[in-house]
């Protein structure tokens, strides 16, 4: 980025006023929901959803119309003293995805267990669920819009505080244990992150990522700081080998919570890893560290997929598949940095992978929830003939699976194809090989579920309870979103390029 372009990011731009609204709206929702309590909280949270959807769509349109990064200076104080909110193409894509998935999971929960019917006694669990859902939304929007290392620390902590109680909402011992393990990983991660941010401030006296990217030099303080911050973020993203907390936490949570945790929460800390290694650290400096991160990602793909193949329970299989799919995201880092010709494709591919995995995984977790409600368990060995009972749900699960495998015409195909072609074009064949292996393994674990589910049952499948058809349709809509991304027109993909970091270090060249 040229200095003049950096300077232009130090004033509030047109449409910039939308950015704080995207954070204020869900926060106001949390406060009002707590005030209203019970049924009022449920209805209020539902009313916030369309408003949040419109707001995030408006930000995406704003980025598109302005054809540049949207900036809002809080209190009109420019950085380094003030805090700037910024939205680029990646932020806009994540904001819209977040709004859609939270609305989908929210409607799913409202049609299911988290609605208090008229006349019934109000319970604590639904109130906790709805306030946590809105808190989660606040924290996610805050992460996607912040550009200040300390502000991002606070946003990440808010996210942890909203995500951990969602894991143990039912209060049973195994989920409490999973939540505790998740909290410890997250706390250690944020302490390491804050230590890194302290060192960066000590070296440069600034915390604004855009300003810092002009100043960082390859020196020990920066290496130690980015190393600590990255280690902390990897613990929160659950990248191999720090993934141990993820499967029990995501598999034990209630279905709508699992969907949000797996689709969105792990992406927030990944988003920050991208900000760190593609926005903050300029190209030749980031070359070697991003190779290490991609190697961990490759290990996550293989290890996570093989473990997913060995699971006996559907929700654990889907959770291990998240461990694997997170690996693909990290393959974007060495490919998308610098001003290379392949960086454009790799950047788009990485963003598409984050978005399409979010939709596919949300659909799959919600589908698993419906399966468990219908037959009373989620053992894969007992799924015979479930396709007869829940045709739409099993179809949605299959569509989500197509996206994970990377088969056309899904969003996962577009993402993996772009990453694959970038890997081949840049001569980094090893990542291409891992991606192909990962696709095959994903095919294996999706087939393990679909084959019995679609087989003709020998005896009638015992049905414990019926599920509302509206919930089946919601799951299908989310899965279709993952498909539709594969048909995204080039103009939409150009939106993702807005704000793509292409800075290179002048001193090293």
């Amino acid at each position, binding site marked *: 980025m040229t200095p003049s372009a950096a300077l232009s990011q130090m004033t509030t731009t047109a449409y910039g006023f939308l950015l704080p609204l995207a954070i204020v709206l869900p926060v106001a929702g949390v406060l009002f929901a707590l005030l209203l309590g019970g049924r009022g909280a449920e209805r209020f949270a539902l009313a916030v959803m369309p408003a949040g959807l419109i707001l995030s769509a408006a930000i995406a349109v704003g980025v598109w119309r302005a054809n540049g990064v949207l900036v809002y200076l809080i209190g009109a104080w420019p950085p380094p003293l003030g805090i700037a909110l910024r939205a680029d193409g990646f932020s806009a894509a994540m904001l819209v995805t977040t709004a859609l998935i939270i609305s989908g999971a929210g409607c799913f929960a409202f049609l299911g267990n988290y609605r208090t019917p008229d006349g019934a006694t109000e319970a604590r669990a639904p109130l906790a669920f709805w306030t946590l859902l809105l808190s989660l939304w606040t924290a996610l929007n805050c992460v996607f819009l912040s550009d200040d290392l300390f502000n991002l620390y606070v946003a990440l902590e808010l996210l942890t505080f909203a995500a951990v109680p969602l894991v143990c909402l039912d209060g*049973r011992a195994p989920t*409490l*244990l999973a939540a505790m393990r998740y*909290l410890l990983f997250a*706390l250690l991660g944020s302490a390491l992150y804050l*230590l890194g941010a*302290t060192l960066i401030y000590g070296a440069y*006296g600034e915390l604004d990522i855009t300003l810092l990217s002009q100043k960082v030099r390859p020196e020990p303080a920066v290496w130690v700081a980015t190393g600590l911050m990255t280690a902390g973020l990897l613990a929160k993203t659950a990248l191999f080998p720090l993934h141990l907390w993820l499967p029990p936490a995501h598999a034990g949570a209630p279905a709508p919570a699992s969907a949000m945790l797996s689709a969105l929460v792990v992406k927030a800390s990944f988003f920050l890893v991208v900000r760190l290694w593609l926005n903050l650290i300029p190209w030749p400096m980031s070359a070697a560290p991003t190779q290490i991160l991609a190697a961990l990602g490759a290990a996550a793909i293989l290890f996570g997929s093989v473990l997913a193949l060995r699971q006996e329970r559907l929700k654990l299989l889907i959770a291990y598949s998240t461990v694997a799919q997170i690996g693909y995201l990290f393959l974007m880092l060495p490919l998308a940095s610098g001003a290379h010709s392949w960086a454009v494709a790799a950047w788009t591919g990485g963003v598409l992978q984050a978005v399409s995995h979010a939709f596919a995984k949300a659909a799959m977790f919600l589908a698993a929830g419906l399966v468990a409600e219908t037959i*009373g368990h*989620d053992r894969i060995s007992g799924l015979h003939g479930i396709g007869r009972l829940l045709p739409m749900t099993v179809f949605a699960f299959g569509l989500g699976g197509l996206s994970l495998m990377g088969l056309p015409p899904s969003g996962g195909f577009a993402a993996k194809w772009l990453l694959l072609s970038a890997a081949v074009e840049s001569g980094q064949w090893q990542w291409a090989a891992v991606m192909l292996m990962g696709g095959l393994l994903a095919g294996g674990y999706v087939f393990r579920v679909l084959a019995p589910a679609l087989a003709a049952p020998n005896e009638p499948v015992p049905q414990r309870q019926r599920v509302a058809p509206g919930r089946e349709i919601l799951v299908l809509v989310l899965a279709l979103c993952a498909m539709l991304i594969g048909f995204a027109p080039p103009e939409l993909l150009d939106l993702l390029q807005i704000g793509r970091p292409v800075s290179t270090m002048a001193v090293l060249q």
Partner: protein
Amino acid sequence: MNSTTLAGLCGAALVGLGLFGFVTHPNLLRKILAFNLMGSGVFLLFGVVARRGAAAGIGADPVPQALIITGIVVAFSATALAVALLQRLFKETGQATLRSAPKGSSVDGADV
């Protein structure tokens, strides 16, 4: 060695001790205390950073102090959440460590 360097080394030592305790102690309450020790070390380092800014002639840098206060509030909330979770875990299972639950009961499919 001046007092700023000494404070910085103390901060680093606190972070190291906290990290060691966090990783090695199986008892969850000790882990939470170790996390707080680590946090105190980070805040002390932030203070040293502010002091170094003063040594460079900018006057006492007020930004890190504002950040420390925010950080303390965040760490306090984190501790409160962790302790509440630990209390509930102890009430449900009688254990205060991360020993795994009996095999097979880890994820009950019936819950949705």
